[in-house]
Structures are given as structure tokens and as C-alpha cells.
């Protein structure tokens, strides 16, 4: 039954062009091919656009000519209420133009017959705050492995003269395989311009960590990212009592004593009841 429900038609996203960045409002143009091949075709990606700038997304019907699988596509996101875009063999191309006003992730999904269950897979479009203009800033990032398998991300923010900028937030994000970018936090830089955050252990995986300074106070936007490979050796996992694969003996004993005691008393009561019958 689940297979029946699993959408036969899903989206394949191919990013075609993004216009060059400019100080004034600009527009993004994104072309997305739609077929039944699934999200796997294009893997996971994240396209970043700034709030307040216009986006035009063109959907292109990319099915086999023999097949007639119309797609009804919805774009979901904070502050958006967009009409459904329909493409089919007869109408293979359709565009939608809109201006996102709020930050967040835009999800694109086919609503027949997906019924909204596929939005967590595949790519997404990230709407970020408009980049602040101002004096040039430089942001560097270092990822430092720790003994327990986790990593430490240290970002340093400096002005054009190389002087550290303190007391401003640096936003750290981790690119994840599912669910897009995970916001790790926004520690404040100290006097030497550095802000530090811990990254959880991910054995055998490549971690991409980004740091972003949104600007303000006369300073302009800056961002940087770095990658680090997690140790191949799996981190020694010490399960706690309730997350261990087998129940701890103490828990099993407690349950046995409590429930066993209660059921034994039930038994004794029923014994009394059957004695009533005999007496």
C-alpha cells in the first residue's frame, strides 16, 4: 500500500543559472527539470537567494515522450502563498515569478500523488537575509578535530586593516544530508575577533561548516566555509541505560518485581474469588 502511495512522479532539480550578485535588487532565474526519476538524480543541494529579491523558477517537463505524467508543483515557504504550477506533455514548460520576503527554506514538491511527503528529500532553496553593505570585512574559519571525535569550529572576523572585530554574532551552519542546513548557533566574537562552536562527531563523513557575519555597525556582509573529514574510526559510543540495545538488568528486575508483584496479587484475589465459589 505504501508503495502505491509512494509518488511515482518526483522532481529532479537542475540549477541552470543564477544571475551575478549586485548591490541593488536583482533577480534569480532557476530552471528545474521535472521527471519521475526522483530526487536522487540531482542529489542534495542548496541554492541561496536573498529575501526581497525576485526569483523566477521555470519548470520543464522531462518525461519520456510516451509517458503522460502531469505534475502539479507547489512551492512552500514562510510568507508564501503561491498558486500551483502545472506542467504536462501538452504544456511542457511553466514559470512562476515571486519575491520571498521572509528567510527560511523553500520546498518544491509535486502534489500528485506525493501529498506532501517528499519535501524533506532532495534539494531546496534557501532564502537568507539581504546582505548588508558597508566596510569590507574578512572572515576565516578553522576546523579542529578533538579527541572525542567531535570538532571545534573557530571563526575569526577582521576589518580591512586586519583588526579583530569583537562583540558581534557569527552564524554557524552545518550542511546535512537530509533537511538542508542545520543552524548550529550564533556565538559572539570576543576581543580577538574569534567565535567558537562545537560540531558533533560524524565518523567517516565530510563535514561542511559555514560561518556568516551578517554585517551591521558600518561593516559589510562576510561568509566563509570549510570542510573536514571525520575520523574513519568510529567514535566509541557508550550507550546510556535506556538507549542501550539490551535492557539493563536493573530495569528488567524492577519491571519484573513491580509487575510480577501486581499480577501475583491479582492472582491471589482471583484465588479468593474462586474460593467464594467453593465455600
Amino acid at each position, binding site marked *: *500500500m505504501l508503495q502505491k502511495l509512494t509518488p511515482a512522479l518526483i522532481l529532479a532539480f537542475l540549477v541552470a543559472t543564477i544571475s551575478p550578485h549586485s548591490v541593488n535588487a536583482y533577480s534569480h532565474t532557476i530552471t528545474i527539470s521535472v521527471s519521475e526519476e526522483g530526487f536522487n538524480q540531482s542529489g542534495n543541494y542548496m541554492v541561496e537567494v536573498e529575501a526581497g529579491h525576485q526569483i523566477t523558477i521555470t519548470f520543464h517537463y522531462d518525461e519520456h515522450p510516451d509517458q503522460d505524467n502531469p505534475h502539479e508543483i507547489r512551492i512552500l515557504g514562510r510568507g*508564501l502563498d503561491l498558486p500551483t504550477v502545472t506542467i504536462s506533455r501538452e504544456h511542457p514548460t511553466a514559470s512562476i515569478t515571486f519575491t520571498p520576503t521572509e528567510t527560511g527554506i523553500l520546498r518544491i514538491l509535486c502534489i500528485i500523488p506525493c501529498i506532501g511527503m517528499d519535501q524533506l528529500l532532495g534539494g531546496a532553496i534557501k532564502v537568507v537575509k539581504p546582505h548588508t553593505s558597508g566596510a569590507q570585512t574578512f572572515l576565516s574559519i578553522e576546523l579542529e578535530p578533538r579527541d572525542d571525535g567531535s570538532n571545534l569550529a573557530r571563526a575569526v572576523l577582521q576589518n580591512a586593516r586586519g583588526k579583530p572585530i569583537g562583540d558581534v554574532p557569527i552564524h554557524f551552519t552545518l550542511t546535512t544530508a537530509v533537511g538542508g542546513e542545520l*543552524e548550529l548557533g550564533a556565538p559572539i566574537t570576543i576581543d580577538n575577533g574569534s567565535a567558537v562552536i562545537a560540531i558533533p562527531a560524524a565518523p567517516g563523513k565530510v563535514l561542511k561548516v559555514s560561518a556568516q557575519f551578517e554585517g551591521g555597525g558600518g561593516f559589510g556582509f562576510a561568509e566563509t566555509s570549510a570542510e573536514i573529514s571525520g575520523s574513519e574510526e568510529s567514535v566509541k559510543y557508550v550507550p546510556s541505560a535506556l538507549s542501550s540495545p539490551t535492557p539493563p538488568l536493573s530495569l528488567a528486575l524492577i519491571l519484573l518485581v513491580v509487575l510480577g508483584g501486581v499480577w501475583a496479587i491479582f492472582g*491471589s484475589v482471583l484465588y479468593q474469588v474462586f474460593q*467464594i465459589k467453593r*465455600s
Partner: protein
Amino acid sequence: MTTTIASSAQKGSAGLESLDPHERLLLAPVIKWGRGTYLTIGALGAIVLVGIYAYIVQLQNGLTVTGMRDTVSWGLYITNFVFFIGISHVGALLSSILRLTGAQWRHPITRMAEAITFAALLMGALMPIIDLGRPERVLNLILHGRLQSPILWDILSITTYLVGSTIFLILPLIPDMALLRDKFTNAPFWRRWIYKVLSFGWRGTPEQHVRLERAMNTMAILILPVAIMVHTVVSWIFAMTLRPGWNSTIFGPYFVAGALASGAASVVLAMVVFRKMYHLEDFITVSHFRKMATLVLTLDLTYLYFNISEYVTLAYKMESSDKALLTDLFRGSFAGLFWLTQILGLLVPAFLLAFSMMRPIDWLKRIRLLRPLPLAAAAVVFLAASFASAFFQSMFGLDLAPLALVLRIGALILAGLFAVSLIPVLQSRPIAIFVIASSLIVIQAWVKRFIIVVPVLEHPFLPNTPLTEVLYRPTWVEWAITAGSMAGFLLIYFFISRIVPIVSVWETKHDHKVEEPVRGFGPALKQPATTSSPEV
């Protein structure tokens, strides 16, 4: 003699001559099934059938026919589950505590409470299976269950409680079953079989009494901790996660307090209905209602205290992960339901119940200004005028804001005076107050469970999940199954009241004999005898 009773009962007449007046009154609903009985069973059965149809639709198409998705994966079914388990506590509370403390006034109401427990548990236990979508997978919990999982603790504790509650319901039934076995010999075969099996050969000998008392006392001691365990474990299903809104250390007692309040309120409603329907005015007196009202008020205030403790501590800190949820509850899309539960569901019943216990405020009646209807009408007029002033302001550009403010303040004052004017009216009808307060508490209990379950899931941990993807809107399938489960609960409860006397015959016999000369709510009813139970 028995033949006469049975044959006349079959004809539907009131010929219960072989029974004494006490037995006749209490056994009449069991022996005589009139048209009303069949109509009630038919109406409730029809709603149950609609629920079953909706469940078949869900089985055929999967959970996609519900409003639940991967983010909000618990909805009405789990709300119903927690609600039913909650009201099931009342059997343990009333029967166990009152029995152990020797409160004789409990006799006419304990069976009502125990039957609520039984019926609510049957429906409550069904809900997680319905929520599974693939019901056969419940076997996985038994075959591959992890002892470390609160879900498995839940199954174990609910099963234990269901068995315990069934025993606790059956034990005090034994002498009454024997009475029906002996005197209702012309009953349909299936009912005779039930009476015979569940009377366990009762003849009322001293030895049988001793054994029965021993068994009942044992169960009275045992069932209370089991009931508390069940609802604590139900709360742990939520509290043992790290989700904002559920990550709480007081969820165990918080849930137990809410369960006891709603359970006690549901018994008050049952008392009102059965008193009227089965003419039990001599057994369930105003004194019983007053005692139950004291209990409901205490539990209502306890639950209110837990609510304040839970939300104020979170709201004071406004930790970032809690902020979105709390804002949604206090000022957002769930604010209406949230404040409804807190004010209309807990505060207002507390005031109503407290007023009912105060000495009648007769001097209020003498104030000619305090007349409910004119005050209500005046408040409505003031409110309408304030809205009209806003309309005229927008239409003609007049600055009527000060006038609108005065009118709204006036409407508020009039509404307050209206509430005060209601006090003497309500105090002259105490049972009406109890019904209103109890109904509000029971409705609050269901809505509060919804508020505990759904808003938390609508605020997922996954980053940047658009709100449009996580909104939960129950579908007709869920509403139909919910209605079916409520009707199923009422059907089981009503059926029990038609199969066995809903007021214990043998336990109330002595009380009633003492009070027999006094018709109505005489003083003798308030001081039942304290002698031991009579033989049947």
C-alpha cells in the same frame, strides 16, 4: 414468585412485586428494557458504525486519509487515548480511597465510577492501535519490544490496569449478580449465563462475605498505585523526549492531577444522568453532590496549580526552543483553545463550585439592580454600540475612539454585574452548578490533551521547516473515529447500567433502610449507617 417478576418484566410492565422496594427501584433499569433503551443503544450504535466505517476507510487507504503527516504524527487519536486513560482514573480514586477511608457515602456512586474506568480503558486502549495505521504491527511491540521504551511500559501498565479494573468492577458486583441470578430467572439466556458466571456461586454465607471483603480490600489497596503508575507512564511517553513543551519533570503528577479532575467531573455527570433517568433521587442526594463537588473543586485547583507551575516557569525563561511554542499557545493560533482551557475549563468551574459551597448570598437578591436578563441585555447593547461606533468612525471619519472605549468598559462592568447577579440564581440550583462546572472540566480535559499533543509537534526540531508543511488539520475520518469512540464509551457504559444495577444493591441496602421513612433529601440521608454490609 420469580416467574411472576420475570414474566411481567418481559411484558415491559412494572411488576417487580417479589422484590423489596429498595431492590425494585435499583433493579428496575436492569429488568425492564423499554423503547428508550433500544433507541439509545441504536443511536449510539449508529455513531459507532460511522466510526467503524471511517476506520475501514483508513485501513484501506492508510494514514494518508488523516491529517497526520511525518511532522505531526500524533493527532486526535492520541488526544482521545490520553483523555480516556485520564477519566479512567476515577474508579480507582473514588472506590479505592473512599473504601480505605471508610467513607460510607461512597456506596451509591462507586459502581458508576468503576464502570467509567472499565469503559474508558477499553476505548483508550484501542486508540494507539487505531493510530498505528497498520494495526497488525502492534504485535511487533510484543515480539520485538524493548524494555527500555516507554511505549512498552505503557502497554504493560495499561494491560495491568485494565485487568485490575475489571477485577475491581466485578468483585462488588458478585452479590448483586447472585440477586439477579436468583430473581430474574426469566431473563434472556445470555444474561442468565452472565449472572450465573459472575455470581461465583454466591449464597451470602459469612465465609463468602469474609473472602469477598478480603479480596475487595486487597484490590482497593492495589488499584490506586496501579492507576497512578498508568497515567505517569502515559505522561512519560511525552516527557521522556527532548521536545519543547514535553520536556518536563512534573508531567507525571501533572497528568495524574488532570486525570483525577476530569474523572471526578465525569462521575458527577454520570450521577446527574442516572439519578434522573433511573429515578435514584433517594440514593444520590444533594449531599452526595456536595461531597463530590468538594472533591472536584480540590482536584480542579490542584490541576490549575500544576498548569500555572508548568507554563509560568517556561514562560519566565522563554528559552529559545520553547519560545515559538509558547508564543503560539499564548498569542498565536492555539491561543483561543489554550485560554479556553485555562479560564473556561478550570477557573470558571472553580468559581462555580466555590460559590455552590458558600452560604447562600440572599442579600444579593434584594438589590433590584441585579437582575440577570436586563443586565445581559444591557451588556450586549453596550458591546454592539461600541462596534457600531467603530463602524461609524471608519465610514464618516469621526473620532469616536473615546466613546468606543467608554462603551466597552461599560459592557465589561455590566458583564461583571451580570455574573454577580447569577450567583443567587445558581446557588438556588446547586446541581445545575455542578453539572455546568463538571461539563466544562470534562470538555477542558479533551481540549487540553489536544493542546499538549498537537502544538508541540507543529514546532519541529528540523531546521527551516516551513510552517505550511507542519499544520495539522484533522480530517473527517479522524473526527468520525473520535465520535465513534466517544459513542462506544457511552454505549458500553449505558449497556453496563442496563445489565447490572448501576447503584450497588447490597451495599446500599442498609443505608436505604435507615433512610426509608424520609422521602427526598432528609437529614438521615446525610448520615448513613456505619454497620457492616448485610447479607443478600
